[in-house]
């Protein structure tokens, strides 16, 4: 193992002596005198329960986290008494602005309260009369295949970073766990949608694979977060809107609504995270914009891929409604980028040029 104990404690008489001393009734109890600060948290609105906001008081709230955490690299909870001898667990994300969003606690609460289980919450029986023609069924399964890939990789992105984050940022870590399960549920639900009845998966979309690899391999957490939350999930949300608009049965409508709802949480964190990062460190704006230029090139590849645009066109009854929907999503996306402090991205992004190739515009 990489981390080895300094001695074999099973042969250590000192440990045995300490255990035996306590077992003989000689307790020290000095620990009972020290607490980090008494609070008496209660639900501020009883029907919401006891929320993260309700407990973030005094020494326990996030306001006390410094921009650079230097006092705790262990798993000790924020606000606990830190005795000498706590080891470092080697966290790499120790700057608050690298990860922080004031919305995280509330998004975590929302993620839990809006949980759903594809196995029994989706009205799968409604697909027995799906209302879709055979080509539309194939198109739907192709889009499901791509959503499974998105779900799989977007569960991995927060997983790749969460264990490297300092425990002082526990609201962000909790939210990343919500993202892991939300993305997993996308993979699960759309895999089941593709297979149910007499079903099957479609083909892997190479351009989507490239885009997902770019998101997955983003070199820093802010770049990964902006790529996945701000860019990719804006389009997942847009795709959910298109699936909802073309749904012909209760199961597909339900899946579209849930997909949109979950995607919105990713986007909300992405916007607020980038906004708070750029407020704290405006110099990061250009490096983030440069990264997003490349990510949006990957996005254009995916949106224009045959495996993506053609099934959307089959479900929507033509290419034009798809382009109009993409244009609406692009408008929203650029508004969000501006709100996040990235400035006007329209002039540098490949998305408007892509849309104009197709006869649309953002």
């Amino acid at each position: 193992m990489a981390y080895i104990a300094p001695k074999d404690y099973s042969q250590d008489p000192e440990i045995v002596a300490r255990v035996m001393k306590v077992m003989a009734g000689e307790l020290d109890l000095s620990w009972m005198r020290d607490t980090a600060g008494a609070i008496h948290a209660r639900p501020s609105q009883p029907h919401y329960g006891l929320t993260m906001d309700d407990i973030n008081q005094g020494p326990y709230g996030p306001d006390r986290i410094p921009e650079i955490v230097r006092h705790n690299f262990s798993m000790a909870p924020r606000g606990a008494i830190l005795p000498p001898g706590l080891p470092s667990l080697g966290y790499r994300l120790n700057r608050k602005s690298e990860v922080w969003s004031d919305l995280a606690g509330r998004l975590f609460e929302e993620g839990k309260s809006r949980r759903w289980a594809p196995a029994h919450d989706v009205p799968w029986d409604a697909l027995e009369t799906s209302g879709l023609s055979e080509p539309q069924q194939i198109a739907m399964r192709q889009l499901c295949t791509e959503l499974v890939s998105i779900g799989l990789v977007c569960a991995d992105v927060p997983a790749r970073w969460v264990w490297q984050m300092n425990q002082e940022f526990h609201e962000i870590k909790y939210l990343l766990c919500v993202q892991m399960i939300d993305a997993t549920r996308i993979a699960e639900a759309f895999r089941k949608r593709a297979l149910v009845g007499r079903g099957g998966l479609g083909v892997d979309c190479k351009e989507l694979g490239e885009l997902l690899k770019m998101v997955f391999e983003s070199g820093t957490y802010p770049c990964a977060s902006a790529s996945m939350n701000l860019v990719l999930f804006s389009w997942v949300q847009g795709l959910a809107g298109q699936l909802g608009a073309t749904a012909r049965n209760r199961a597909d409508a339900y899946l579209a609504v849930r997909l949109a709802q979950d995607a919105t949480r990713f986007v909300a964190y992405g916007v607020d995270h980038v906004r708070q990062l750029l407020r704290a460190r405006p110099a990061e704006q250009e490096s983030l914009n440069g990264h997003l230029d490349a990510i949006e090139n990957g996005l254009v590849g995916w949106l224009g891929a045959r495996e993506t645009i053609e099934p959307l066109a089959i479900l929507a009854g033509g290419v034009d409604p798809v382009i109009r929907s993409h244009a609406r999503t692009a408008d929203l996306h650029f508004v969000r980028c501006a709100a996040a402090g990235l400035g006007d991205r329209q002039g540098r992004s490949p998305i408007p040029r892509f849309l104009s190739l197709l006869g649309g515009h953002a």
Partner: protein
Amino acid sequence: MSYYGSTDYLANSDFVLRMKDLRKGHLDLGWMKAGTEQIEVNAESKRRGLTLLDCNQSSYGYDTLPEIPRGPRGAAPRGAAYDVNEQADLSPELNRKSDVWAYKVASFYEEAMSRQWDATTYIPWSDLDKYERPQEVEIAFAQLCTFFTEVEMIATDLPAKWMWRMNNQFHEVKHFIASQAIDEARHAEVFRKRVLAGGVGLMQALPQAEHSLKAILDGDSYSEASAFMHLLAEGNVLTMFRFSEYISPTPVDKRIFQLVMQDEARHVSYGMQHLKWIIDHSPERKEQLHLALDEAETFSISQFDSALFEAMIVLAGKGTKPDQIKRGIEVVGTLQVKQIEEYFGRLRRAGFEDRIARSKFQPLLAMIGLGKQDAQRPS
């Protein structure tokens, strides 16, 4: 540091021409002939709904997944058509089924999804005011909950550290890990909330426990880290949850432990079934696991933090008077033996019983005279 793809799409004449063609309504539709299998999938049980077990068929299933699925290294879901040379390679490092797999893993995931709960609303927080607790008991409970808040996130961080390195062909395991991550975040949340609702506040972090957490996080392989964390550490915590329910100062606290226990039991079961899978399918790795558990048990023994140990005694005896301490020691002594017995039981069920004779706990039990026959069980 980042990957930026192999194509500048708007500078690619094929792509631009294709977009112009699309604008005229010309579709290629080659993707409609995916050539993938068509299968009949329906929910076997209406009550359970459509589960991953129902989808376990043919090329989409996990039973037919070989020990080494050669070829897929990207985001293509299992059973989809893909081009081995064209796929975007995500460079997965865990590509053997026995690296990650566990019997019943699909069932564990479905169970996790159907038993999600919410610490915000499932616990009757306002009821805490109804129950009077002696201050010393509340302080001891705050120390216990500080410890649980401290250790629970390791069971998010460790599996997350390995999940993104796993081949997407093993999606049932990755799904389970994501469910474990949210379970553990919820556990850390519920214990933090309990401490801060109790009127005492957070207590001491525990250095020796932290060294164990570091050793878990730094495990050399996923399976070694899993044996330490799922089987030994979470197993110990599961026994402590059961003990804590027994000594809970209020019904509100009992409710917390009932909820966390069902999640923790699932995580321990995954660890046990992963170990069993390795023993059954890759027995040559046994010695490597022995070595990892030698060290894990050593860390576990070192985890004697007097604040936690004494807090449990105060809770079990319901106070600090001499007769209460005496009673507390009896109960906690039983707990210590129970933790080891249950760990041995899990090793047996995983088919790893030869570990028991080699265990580092054996000499310790002998040295402190806390053998099975000596434990005084509370009535």
